[in-house]
């Protein structure tokens, strides 16, 4: 078994020692090894020297020179956007209600005329869809299915299971991998 006490401190362990976090058994080596103590003391002195290096200041007016080149963009505030949207919806609604109240006869005529025309169109569409459906070759089979509750239940059950399975598969396929590395961009 390798005698850990005899092995010199690694650079990582010197780091740990500087941070006051060296393992006890490795402290024992440090006490007994002049070479490692010399290295550790030199590293501590160096760290102290580096840590006391001064910060330099740029020339006066640095902030002004930077700001002269920076484009300060005003982002629209969320409350202002919400207020604008609300106004955009409410004002036309209010205008519409106001006009309707001010012109009840005109409104009634319009509704009757438009309503009647729309009703005729809707009825024609339903009749056309109905006759088209009856003419389909699969219609008798569908009718048979609807008339049998057991078969209908089976079809619905199978469809629900297939739908749920499809949702699970799609979610797995579309799931994005979680990024492992902090990524900042400039």
């Amino acid at each position: 078994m390798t005698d850990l006490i005899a092995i010199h401190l690694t650079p990582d362990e010197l780091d740990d020692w500087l941070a006051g976090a060296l393992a006890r058994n490795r402290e024992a080596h440090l006490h007994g090894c002049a070479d490692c103590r010399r290295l550790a003391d030199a590293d501590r002195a160096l760290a102290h020297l580096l840590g006391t290096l001064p910060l330099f200041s740029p020339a006066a007016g640095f902030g002004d020179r930077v700001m002269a080149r920076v484009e300060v963009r005003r982002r629209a505030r969320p409350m202002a956007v919400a207020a604008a949207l609300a106004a955009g919806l409410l004002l036309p609604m209010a205008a519409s209600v106001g006009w309707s109240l001010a012109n009840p006869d005109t409104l009634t005529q319009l509704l009757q005329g438009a309503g009647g025309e729309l009703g005729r169109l809707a009825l024609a569409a339903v009749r056309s869809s109905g006759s088209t459906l009856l003419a389909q070759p699969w219609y008798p089979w569908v009718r048979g299915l609807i008339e049998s509750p057991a078969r209908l239940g089976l079809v619905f059950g199978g469809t629900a299971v297939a739908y749920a399975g499809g949702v699970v598969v799609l979610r797995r396929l579309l799931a994005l991998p979680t990024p492992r590395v902090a990524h900042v961009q400039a």
Partner: protein
Amino acid sequence: MAKPGLDLATMSDQDVVLEARAGRQAAYRELVRRYERPIFSLIYRMVRNREQAEDLSQETFVKALNAIESYRPEYKFSSWIFKIANNVSIDHLRRRELDTLSLDGSPHALTPEAIQASALQLGDRQETALEELEAKELGGEIERAIATLRPEYRSCILLRHVEGRPYEEIATMLDLPLGTVKTYIHRARGELRQALAHLRQ
């Protein structure tokens, strides 16, 4: 202008950034005020020229502040801006062609006239005020020892021991694996120990 009662100096970096994104010029200025000295100091020690360091520091802030919308608040603002500063410095050092001057002339000189023209003439050149300031600020033993390090080692050791950043944050800032950062710092410490050994004797 800041809202009345809003003391930007006491707000966290993230909150000041939010104010800056809302278009408050005072918030931009606050970010410059907080980081101008650390950023300038890092770049100055990297490029060792005050004028160039000023230009590069300006470039760093302009890049950062003009792209403030792309900053992601879940990461530290200081990491982000130091990353930009380091990239700007390293790019500058790569672009800059450093002619090696020796007392005996450039190694690229081929004729006696060219050698004489490129030889460093001691004593016949007056230092400008800026050069005097540079010599005073960066002329110390430790500063000159730092200048001998490779740029990659230099930025790592400065971020670790001058800025006090943990290894993991340096790795994020410089887009390097953690092991590489540790190796660079250990090697930088080794080189600095050797360069300063005479001071301990």
